[in-house]
Each structure stands twice: as structure tokens, then as C-alpha cells.
């Protein structure tokens, strides 16, 4: 393929869809990392993949199955009232097992299982783009409010409860937002690319940024740059997008990690 094909109208919707996801996922990932729940994306992505496969087995649209599974996982996690990676590790094992067992018992399920694991960005539609736009709108609208409370709750854990607020509602709202985002991303770019977008930019930015605000800017900048590079390389070199994105993010992380904030 040639570079000119990057601008083919066929790729505009996938490009825009992935761009929005690459903007939002690392920002959410910063708060996931703050809560020491960096396994969340992988656990939720596996569960949503399982939800998509199971949906096919019972004749429901895979995206509905993925979103349903994500909401269920967030609710289960909320019921445990625990932060940290333990619950997400259990969800990861359950999702992996259910997705592969479901795939083994259905031809279409097997096909979908492969596409969810590897990603199928080039086949995403206006429906995916609309959902990604809705996600960006929610994050842009509620982001500042949510950010302040998540940081406050992290550094002064008793302050919300002491002033009559319900920390569990905050946790549930955030868990649902992450679950919804991961479900959408898994459907578009696959399990591992979703995990990489949530994990790698915050991992690097937390080390090199001089402030929280700059860390968020770094997260988004690094993620979007890596996404655009991977998108072009995947088309020009005729390679699968998911592995190309993960590889680009890893390479970018290794380049950026030696830089450290001066203060």
C-alpha cells in the first residue's frame, strides 16, 4: 500500500473513531493508575470480549453484549467496595475463559473472538464513531468534576464521607465510565491495544510530568501521536493495526522513560 491510501475516504471513520478513543482512554488511565487499578483495562476488555462472544451465541448484537458485560463487571466490582487490582485479575481470568469457551462452541463466535482480541479498527462504522463521540462528550462534561473528587478521595479518603457525600457512588460512576470506554475500545481496536492505551501513556507520564495537569497533557499527546504513527504505518506497511499500535506505544515509552521531571 502507499501513503496516499491513508487519506482514502474508506479510512476516515475508523481514523476518527480510533483518534477519539486514543484521546479518552489514557486520560481515564491516569485515574485508574492513581487508584492502583491499572489491570482494570485488561480485566474489563476480556470480560467485554466474552460478552460479545456470548451475545452471538444467544443471537444478540455483539456490541450490546460487550456493553452489558462491561456494566455487569463494573457493578460486581462496585459491590466488592475494594480498590486495587485483585477484582480485575479475577475478571480477567473469567473473561478469558468465557470468551474462549464461547468461541469454541460457535463459528461466528470464534471469528468475533479473534477480531476482539486483535482489533478490527478498519471495519468500525458510524455507530462506533457516534458512541466514541458520546464518550468524549461525557468525559469533557464531567471530567473536571470527576477529577477533583477522585484526587480528593485519594489523598483525603475520609473527607467525602465526613462531609456527607457517598464515596461508593463516585466509585461506581467512575467504574462504569471506565467499563463503557473499555467496551467501546475493545470492539474497535481489540483487547491488548485497549489495555496498552490505558496503561502505557499514564505509566510514562507519571514519571516525567512536573504536575498533574501536565501529566494529563502528556498522556493525551503521547497517545495521539503513537496512534497516528501506528495508523499510518499499519496502512503503508499493510500490517494489522492492533499490534502496530501496541508496538508503537512500547517503543515510544522506551524513548520517553529516561526523561524525568526536574522537581
Amino acid at each position, binding site marked *: 500500500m502507499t501513503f496516499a491510501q491513508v487519506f482514502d475516504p474508506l479510512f476516515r471513520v475508523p481514523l476518527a473513531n480510533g483518534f477519539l478513543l486514543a484521546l479518552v482512554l489514557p486520560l481515564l488511565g491516569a485515574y485508574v493508575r492513581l487508584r492502583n487499578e491499572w489491570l482494570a483495562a485488561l480485566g474489563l476488555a476480556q470480560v467485554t470480549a466474552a460478552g460479545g462472544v456470548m451475545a452471538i451465541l444467544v443471537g444478540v448484537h455483539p456490541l450490546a453484549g460487550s456493553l452489558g458485560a462491561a456494566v455487569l463487571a463494573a457493578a460486581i466490582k462496585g459491590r466488592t467496595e475494594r480498590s486495587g487490582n485483585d477484582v480485575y485479575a479475577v475478571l480477567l481470568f473469567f473473561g478469558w475463559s468465557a470468551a474462549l469457551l464461547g468461541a469454541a462452541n460457535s463459528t461466528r463466535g470464534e471469528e468475533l473472538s479473534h477480531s476482539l482480541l486483535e482489533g478490527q479498527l478498519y471495519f468500525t462504522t458510524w455507530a462506533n464513531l457516534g458512541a466514541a463521540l458520546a464518550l468524549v462528550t461525557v468525559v469533557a462534561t464531567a471530567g473536571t468534576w470527576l477529577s477533583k473528587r477522585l484526587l480528593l478521595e485519594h489523598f483525603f479518603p475520609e473527607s467525602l464521607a465526613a462531609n456527607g457525600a457517598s464515596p461508593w457512588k463516585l466509585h461506581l460512576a467512575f467504574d462504569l465510565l471506565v467499563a463503557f470506554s473499555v467496551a467501546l475500545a475493545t470492539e474497535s481496536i481489540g483487547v491488548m491495544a485497549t489495555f496498552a492505551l490505558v496503561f502505557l501513556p499514564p505509566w510514562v507520564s507519571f514519571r516525567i510530568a512536573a504536575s498533574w495537569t501536565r501529566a494529563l497533557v502528556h498522556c493525551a499527546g503521547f497517545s495521539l501521536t503513537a496512534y497516528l504513527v501506528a495508523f499510518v504505518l499499519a496502512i503503508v506497511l499493510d500490517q494489522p493495526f492492533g499490534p502496530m499500535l501496541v508496538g508503537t506505544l512500547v517503543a515510544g515509552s522506551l524513548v520517553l522513560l529516561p526523561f524525568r521531571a526536574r*522537581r
Partner: protein
Amino acid sequence: MSDEPILSYRGVVAGYAKPVVGPVSFDLGPGDVLGLVGPNGCGKSTLIGALTGTSKVLSGEVVRKPGTTIAYQRQRPVRETDVPLRADELLRLTAATAEPPPSLRPLLKTRVDRLSGGQFQLLTVWACLGGDARLVILDEPTNNMDPDAVAALAELLLSSRGDRAVLVVTHDARFFTEVPARVLEVGR
């Protein structure tokens, strides 16, 4: 009524499945500083938990003046090894808009994970005192602090009393030789 207590503990026995501490009674009004003093493990934090919801009131009652906002600096405040939040960003979280004390000013642009334990402790104390909360609870605020930092903390407390109430929980009764306060011994 202007002299209505901001916080009252009336015969409070606090604990979890079983009683840990109490009965304890006190009133805390505007401008008051009350020290809850006792050895480690005597139930001081459990007593405060009865107010914040982390422990239960098993008998008696905790009465809080309606509309009272609380700033709470917990024992062993969370301090991460790799979180890029700057000191001034942390102060903005609690709306601590008052002019910070001289000892903190040079640190405002520093990431909190690059501060020493004592500096971070002082910062979190100011995050509570520098805002407009009517009731400030400081749980073991002298932890990790060297004598200079303890002196700075005492100065912060004295200079920012205003018409708020401050409840200081500590195992170190010597702190109140520097800060005039009512002292209530817990666990005796």
C-alpha cells in the same frame, strides 16, 4: 446561636463489632482547639471514625452543627511514590486558598512524591487549615516531623484558628506545651 458547639460528643462509645473506646464527652465551639491524647492503640482514631463513618457509635451520640464542613487529615496520609501531583495542586483540591506559611512556599511547585515525609505532612495539615472548613480534624499530625516541623505546625495552628474548631488527635502530649488547647486524655 453563636456559641452553639460545632461538634458535641455525648457519652460516645465507639467501636466496630465490639466497643473500642468510650464513653467520651466533649463540646467543641468556634475558636476551640481540643487535643485528644492517649497512647497508640487506645482508640483515638476509632473515636474520630464515629464522626466520619469509619467506625460505629455503639452508644451515646455525636452531634454536629448543621452545615458544618469538615477537613480531615488522616493518620499516615496517603503518599505515593510515583504520582505527579504538585503541592499547589493538592492545596487547590481542598480549596486551601489562604496564603501558605513561609515554610511551605518554596515547595508549592514540587511534586508531592518528591517531598520528605515531614514536608508532606505539613502540606496536608495546611491543606486542611488553609481552607474554609468549620471543623478541622488532624489525626497524629506530628508523625514524620522533626522538631522544626513540629514548631512550624504549632505556628500554623495558632495563626489559623479563627472561628473554626480544631480537633487534634495525638499520642504526643508534649505537642500541647507549644499549642494552648484543652486536652482530653483517651483510654484512661
